[in-house]
């Protein structure tokens, strides 16, 4: 069924995917049991574990939708969604390959040259090649079209100068896509923007940490000081950067990581309530309320995945999922705090309810900021309603 105002095509997980789900679950169970990783909230952005990424790749669980001729598995979007859900549900450390798998690979498939696909896609699918996102700048956050990083034409390529910020994982990834202005702003703000594939170890690139309020190093400032980018690393068409970036956002905003960031905490909360002798009926009802929202959001995210797979425009639906989903992630942390009546002790042992609570809370401001603030997302939805 679809609302005529905001069309969303309903998709369910096809029954044939249960064996795949079971296989992933068995693998993750054994990884946790042998201590390969400790489950935690917000692991998709901060759990960087390259050996783990390579083990996933050996199972064919990275680059699943990349065609076989580029080293991928040629599987469906819903196959991939099942694997992502399982990884997020246990808070597995997937940050190293997450961005490359989620948005770099689809962008390369859509806009990349044959040479770029041949160079990057097999390495991404092998869990060895990691990307960061070079969109935001000190003066360009939600207003992405105002980027000031300049790309100047030189012999054999372009020279990039400017500063990118909030670049997650830039200190560990090898590459990032940089959105830059390749022609002066002549009134149409969306014209004259282009995307470049930039090596984070290239000459002229300086990466500096910007620490989170917890002191963790995830964000960076990346300074580009006349960095040379050869022509073969221009992504898509010069001047088409705006359209390319907005289509990338459909992938960036609609995935299950936009509602499952705090799932390890929610699962631990259910165990806590179950364990307590009284099984407080009010707490059980609260868990039901959160479960209802979770099930609803999951169906939305699956449906957007189905729309993306069918090549339908999904940027508005994706904005909707992310607005509702990320507020749910924050609500989980708030509810868990009240229901468990537990001090958020930052020195709690890793993997415990309290450690999930601490991390879920301390990371919560980010959920509704990254990937486009929720205010901007609601603006995207409102604009679509005006057009309807």
């Amino acid at each position: 069924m679809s609302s005529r105002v905001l069309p969303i095509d309903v998709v369910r997980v096809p029954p044939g995917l249960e064996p795949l789900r079971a296989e992933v679950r068995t693998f993750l169970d054994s990884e946790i049991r042998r201590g390969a990783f400790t489950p935690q909230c917000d692991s998709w952005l901060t759990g960087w574990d390259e050996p783990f990424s390579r083990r996933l790749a050996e199972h064919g669980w990275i680059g699943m939708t990349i065609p076989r001729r580029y080293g991928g598995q040629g599987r469906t979007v819903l196959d991939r969604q099942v694997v992502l859900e399982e990884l997020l549900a246990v808070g597995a450390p997937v940050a190293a390959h997450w961005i490359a798998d989620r948005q770099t690979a689809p962008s390369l498939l859509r806009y990349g040259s044959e040479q770029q696909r041949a160079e990057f896609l097999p390495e991404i699918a092998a869990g060895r090649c990691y990307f960061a996102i070079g969109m935001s700048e000190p003066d360009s956050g939600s207003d992405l079209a105002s980027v000031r990083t300049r790309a100047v034409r030189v012999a054999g390529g372009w020279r990039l100068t400017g500063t990118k910020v909030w670049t997650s994982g830039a200190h560990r990834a090898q590459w990032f896509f940089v959105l830059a202005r390749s022609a002066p702003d002549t009134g149409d703000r969306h014209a004259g923007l282009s995307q470049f594939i930039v090596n984070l170890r290239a000459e002229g690139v300086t990466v500096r940490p910007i620490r989170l309020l917890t002191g963790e190093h995830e964000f960076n400032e990346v300074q580009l000081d006349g960095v040379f980018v050869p022509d073969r690393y221009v992504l898509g068409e010069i001047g088409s950067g705006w359209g390319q970036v907005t289509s990338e956002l459909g992938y960036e905003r609609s995935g299950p990581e936009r509602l499952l960031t705090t799932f390890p905490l929610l699962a631990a909360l259910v165990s806590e309530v179950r364990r307590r002798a009284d099984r407080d009926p009010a707490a059980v009802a609260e868990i039901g309320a959160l479960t209802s929202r979770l099930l609803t959001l999951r169906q939305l995210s699956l449906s957007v995945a189905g729309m993306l797979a069918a090549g339908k425009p999904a940027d508005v639906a994706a904005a909707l999922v992310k607005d509702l989903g990320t507020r749910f992630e924050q609500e989980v942390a708030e509810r868990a705090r009240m229901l468990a009546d537990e001090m958020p002790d930052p020195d709690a042992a890793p993997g415990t309810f309290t450690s999930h609570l601490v991390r879920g809370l301390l990371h919560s401001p980010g959920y509704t900021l990254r990937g486009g603030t929720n205010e901007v997302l609601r603006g995207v939805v409102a604009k679509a309603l005006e057009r309807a």
Partner: protein
Amino acid sequence: MNEELHAIAATAAQICSEWTPEAAARYSGGWADEVWDSLTKAEFTVLPVPESSGGAGAGLAEAAVVVHEIGRAAVPVPLTETALLAGWLLTAASRTVPTGPLTASAPTDMAVDRCAGGYRLTGKLSRVPYGHLAERVAVLLDRAEPLVAILDSPREAWERGRNLAGEPRDTLLLQDTFVPGEDVTEVDATISGRAFRVRGALGRALLLSGAMEAALDSTITYAGQREQFGRPISRFQAVSHHLAAMAEEAAASTTVAMSAATAGQQPDWILTAAAKAQAGRAAGVVARLAHQVHGALGFTDEHPLRLITTRLWSWRDEFGNERFWERQLGAAACAAPDLWTLVTDPAEVRANG
């Protein structure tokens, strides 16, 4: 959603448009009998009933699409009662399903006594939708060996009641009422009071999500036309964010309700519980914001917004309000091996609960 469902939705919307704004504004109880006739001709009233029982032999998804359109158009007809409840009970009782209108009830405290040639029933059928207008009432007697009784609706015996939108919600007292044995059938144990409630809740979740879309449509139109301070009020960011919030809740409600209905021939009870809780909560938000944006005008009996919001306020409490279903879901979450297993269990594990 596939092409076939889109086509059914379009036909249903066309039929619903026979319920004119004038008729809707005049409505003060009763039902839209002409719309019902058109729904009957299209076989929409018995869509999910097997052909062998006199139905159209379609799936639950097809029926869900039509119910959603009924909700969007706020047409007073006993469609969920006929298609999802009475049709299901009569099929289980191996009876041919008449075209209706039918209604259904699953009383929890009915005394059932065998007697010569049949049964005697004592108890109450409470707040039965369209009770006095239905031709027949399918009554589920939920016991260890459940029975389905089919009563001719004693039109005059009903005590008339209504919901906030004025739709009939009638009560029937049975006092040693004789029902002939041929009208009482033992049915499979899966035909339980719980399954009845799940189906009813699915119907209300679908009606609610349709009505929320109608509230949104009306609000978008009004906010685009009404000017204050020299511009349409939709240009104020505070207002446009109200519209976005309504759209998000409506889309979420429709998506989860349709998901619950596309699990197979039976609703997925976990998704139905989620859908009713979601729709119930969202109904309050959407009704509040719709009235807020419409201003005082929408708060009058001259404006059709009341036809939608009074239904939102009624349907969310029928077949279990959001707290009821949240308790059910919470208990299921605590009983499952872990929460994620509950979330990802395939539909066949969850049919009927």
